[in-house]
């Protein structure tokens, strides 16, 4: 991988990740990934009036994985859960100005982690 492969936006989110860190007492947690391929992503959400009032991520992974999680949190913060669930893998990559082909699975992970966090919240709520 080289700096050249990544867009300025990817590098910006990598260098200055938004909403990064662990969340105390989250309402929902989504963990996806597999250390075999080198990426593990965790997304924490707080939900208020069916909206994502706060969101944080932690990522073990490459530049693309870190920037994908960062931008995904930015894209859905403040959105209703149903709106957030519409976030697709493609949205994440497009917002970053594109990702190298072999790194596209990183954007998948970000969308998947978010969905997992929302599902976790909904499961807990109905309990």
């Amino acid at each position, binding site marked *: *991988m080289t700096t050249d492969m990544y867009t300025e936006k990817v590098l910006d989110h990598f260098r200055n*990740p938004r909403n990064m*860190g662990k969340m105390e007492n989250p309402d929902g947690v989504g*963990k996806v990934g597999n*250390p075999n391929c*080198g990426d593990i992503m*965790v997304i924490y959400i707080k939900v208020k009036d069916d909206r994502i009032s706060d969101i944080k991520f*932690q990522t*073990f992974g490459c530049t693309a*994985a870190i920037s994908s999680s960062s931008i995904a949190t930015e894209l859905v913060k403040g959105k209703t859960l149903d709106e957030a669930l519409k976030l697709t893998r493609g949205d994440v990559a497009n917002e970053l100005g594109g990702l190298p082909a072999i790194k596209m699975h990183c954007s998948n992970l970000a969308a998947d982690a978010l969905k997992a966090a929302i599902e976790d919240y909904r499961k807990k709520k109905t309990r």
Partner: protein
Amino acid sequence: MQKIYMDYGATTPVDKEVLDEMLPFFDKYYGNASSIHSFGIDAFNAVEEARERVAKIIGAKNDEIIFTAGGTESDNIAIKGVAFKNKDKKSSKGYNIITCAIEHPAVLETCKYLDSIGYKVKFLPVDKYGIIKLEDLEKAISKDTFLITIMFANNEIGTIEPMQEIGKIAKKHNVLFHTDAVQAVGKVPIDVNKLNIDLLSISSHKIYGPKGIGALYIRKGVKLQPILHGGGHELGLRSSTYNTPGIVGLGKACELGLKRMDEDVLHMTTLRDQLIKNVLEIEESYLNGHFSKRLCNNAHFRFTAIEGESLNMMLNDAGIAAATGSACSSKKLKASHVLTGIGLTPELAHGSLRLSLGRKSTKEEVEYVCDTIPGVVKKLRNMSPLWNR
């Protein structure tokens, strides 16, 4: 911003003395070394002088060196050359070729290819330092075995294999011994006769020579089947018009490498030990490879809970050029076969960092790197869900 190159294991800059010696061969002495006129003779003489210089750095004779396009080509010519010469031993009961799990892809993939067309290949496992077990090697040899190919020193973790012992075993069983010495030449004294090496691959760009040129040592009497067919250059094994500037460059690089070896080794060892000592002060950081049976310029680390590509990107942002495993591995998105070969889980293998020093590395550069790494590791660990401290 200051830029620090600490990836000499990937490639080296061409030494000024090497470049100066090469330049006239582009436009002044441009003749084809195979031509019989004076232009050709000038080029021919330069090629032969270079051959002598290459031979000298490994204790070989001039007529035991052929020029190739690089380490990969040398490995292919040697391994396939021996295999094709012994094709009657295909589909045998015992192993034909014995190699190891952490070889460079140039050897590994060549052996896998030969395996796929009917040769029997044994890929020996290595211990946690990356060293082959000699008893495994000896056990794998049978009357069907015609080649052992084990690297001199590993390109990722810097481990030096027991060449002397392997050479003895090969000789005892009358099996040819090839070694990819691309990383070792210029950093380890080599005498092919003392080590009983029959075939040895050299690359120019790892020893301050130009890219696209290499050499293969072939012990007198060892017969290879050519894999390139054409004009019959280089004992019929490497047809192609002589790359005179490249050959001259490799020759000069070998001459300088031999002359400076003691000084270079001492310099790089001092810096390497300083790097290792300082970096290992970071909590949950580990050295991959062996502490002493190690190339003088290689420091290879792993850090719990962080991933190597992002680590290298952040170091690059800080002006430091390093590597995570072999540069080629990163394109495959697979944990390095060397690191899984020494028993690391993919998770641990991903957090690896190779720093490789060179002749021109300085104490100041090492200090800057040692000062920078802890902060970068900390930043990535703060992001990591696998770091819970």
